């Protein structure tokens, strides 16, 4: 028996990361309020907002690692708790003890842990995948190096390789562009693009508006509450960003920039302005 659908739903939630009314509070302090988003496969969403505005908290809440007091997160129609292994998470580099006696390979293999059940060891296939991912971020030569001996950018690339090794459907990146070199930034941008093409969902928490505008399809602007969520054309606007950051965001460049949309790669043929503006936003981007 088949049921004829009269009208298809606007968005198929079976294909989405759906966030509904997500509210997070530490003790009695609400740190993030009312997050709503439907994120489809192949979408890259930038989470932007001021420091302490709840960017990292949002990622943690999605993973069930922050005290969620209301709201739901569903992935492909199922509660996120049941889908943990399909979500890869790159925490901020600072949370890890880099003196720990593990090699680059050991760390990358951790991405395979969700695939192996308790007690079981990682196997040859896991090591193959880990090697592939390391070469993708150009770190294979360092496979046997202790992680503390790497530069910040290299450490970040290993974290990215670990997340990729998980072969997840959702990639959560927490400030991956913090304090890294140009090569690493390029590699991370490349990885994000590749994930988009492969139909994965990427959430990128960043305070770097320029990389957000380059890499993302949508922005989720947060400042203790969700200020806005939508395609770049609607959200990457001076008015919206001003509301997010609680004051006018200075977008220098041209005298009349304040009432113009900032340019992104979604506006072809404006390359000159593109670079120009990025320089003037005072954020390094190569």
């Amino acid at each position, binding site marked *: 028996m088949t049921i004829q659908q009269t009208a298809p739903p606007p968005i198929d939630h079976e294909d989405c990361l759906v966030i509904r009314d997500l509210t997070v509070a530490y003790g009695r302090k609400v740190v993030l309020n009312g997050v709503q988003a439907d994120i489809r496969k192949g979408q890259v969403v930038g989470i932007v907002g001021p420091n302490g505005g709840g960017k990292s908290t949002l990622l943690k809440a999605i993973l069930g690692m922050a005290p969620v007091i209301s709201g739901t997160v569903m992935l492909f129609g199922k509660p996120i708790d049941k889908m*943990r292994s399909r979500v890869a*998470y790159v925490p901020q580099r600072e*949370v890890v*003890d880099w003196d*720990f*006696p*593990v090699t680059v390979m050991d760390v990358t293999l*951790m991405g395979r842990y969700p695939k192996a059940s308790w007690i079981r060891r990682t196997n040859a296939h896991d090591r193959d995948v880990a090697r592939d991912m390391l070469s993708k971020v150009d770190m294979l030569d360092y496979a046997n190096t202790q992680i503390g001996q790497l530069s910040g950018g290299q450490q970040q690339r290993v974290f990215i390789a670990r997340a990729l090794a998980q072969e997840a459907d959702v990639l959560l990146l927490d400030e991956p562009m913090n304090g890294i070199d140009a090569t690493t930034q390029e590699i991370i941008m490349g990885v994000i693009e590749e994930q988009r093409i492969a139909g994965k969902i990427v959430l990128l928490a960043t305070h770097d508006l320029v990389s957000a505008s380059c890499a993302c399809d949508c922005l989720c602007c947060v400042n203790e509450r969700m200020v806005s969520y939508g395609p770049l054309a609607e959200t990457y606007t001076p008015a919206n960003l001003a509301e997010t950051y609680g004051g006018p965001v200075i977008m220098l460049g041209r005298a009349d920039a304040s009432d113009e949309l900032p340019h992104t790669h979604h506006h072809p043929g404006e390359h000159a302005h593109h670079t120009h503006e990025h320089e003037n936003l005072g954020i390094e981007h190569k």
Partner: protein
Amino acid sequence: MPGLHYITDPMQYEFMRRALIEVILMGAVTGAIGTYVVLRGLSFIGDALSHAIFPGVVIAFLIGAGIFWGALLFGILTSASIAVVATNRRVKEDSAIGVLFAGSFALGIVLISSSRNFTRDLASFLFGNVLGVTNNDIVLSAIAGVIVIVIVVLLYKELLITSFDRAAAQAMGLPVFWLDLLLLILISLTIVVSLRAVGNILVVAMLVTPAATARLLTDRLPVMMAMSAAIGVMSGIAGLYISYWNDVAAGGTIVLVATALFGLVWLFAPQHGYLTTRLLRRRLATDLAETRVVFESPEIQLPGPH
């Protein structure tokens, strides 16, 4: 072979043979689990656990039950309270633990002061009495040791990622709270195993010193664990013999050997040793100075201004 009697003589005594087995077991288990104590910065918690176990030992002793079980019960209780306290961000964890363990240690002392052989009993609990080890003690130590090692090996990847990157472990859905609690219980079990050999006060040295020594020698976790266990065993054996021939306390001597090994490695470790790094730095400086001469020499041949 001359000098061999130094090794064989003590072994003619049953109590020395038992002591030897006991310190080998103790050295291996404390060394292995000590790796996590060192890497996760749990030295203080290890110390606290060993003190908190004390009243359990005393109560079991006074009511005539097995010391092992009293210690284990208190170890698990304390582990659980530490794990729960640690989940509350508002409580300064180290103060809370400090209060708990000093309090429970005091309880142990008050309880044992009611015993008729107060001083002797207290000393044997606090500083161990490896020469008084019974066969029953050895069996319990062996069982506990095997349990600890098997769990550490089986849960290698879970314990590794929880220790290295807690956030990622949580994100993967691992029950980090229970893994933390498990680790604390394993540490407690190890402490209980070591009470006979080194006693309550010094057990923390066996948890920390061999592992800290091994960390200076390797950058690989499995290697560190094996080395740490080996150093623990070596310290145990050497300490036992030295104490026998010099007629001094075994527990203290074992810890002193471990401390001496740490000192040697700290000075001379191939990569991280204090003297080694200084030597390497000086050699590098000399090399650089020589290279500079090479760079400068063509300059000398440059025609000067006329």
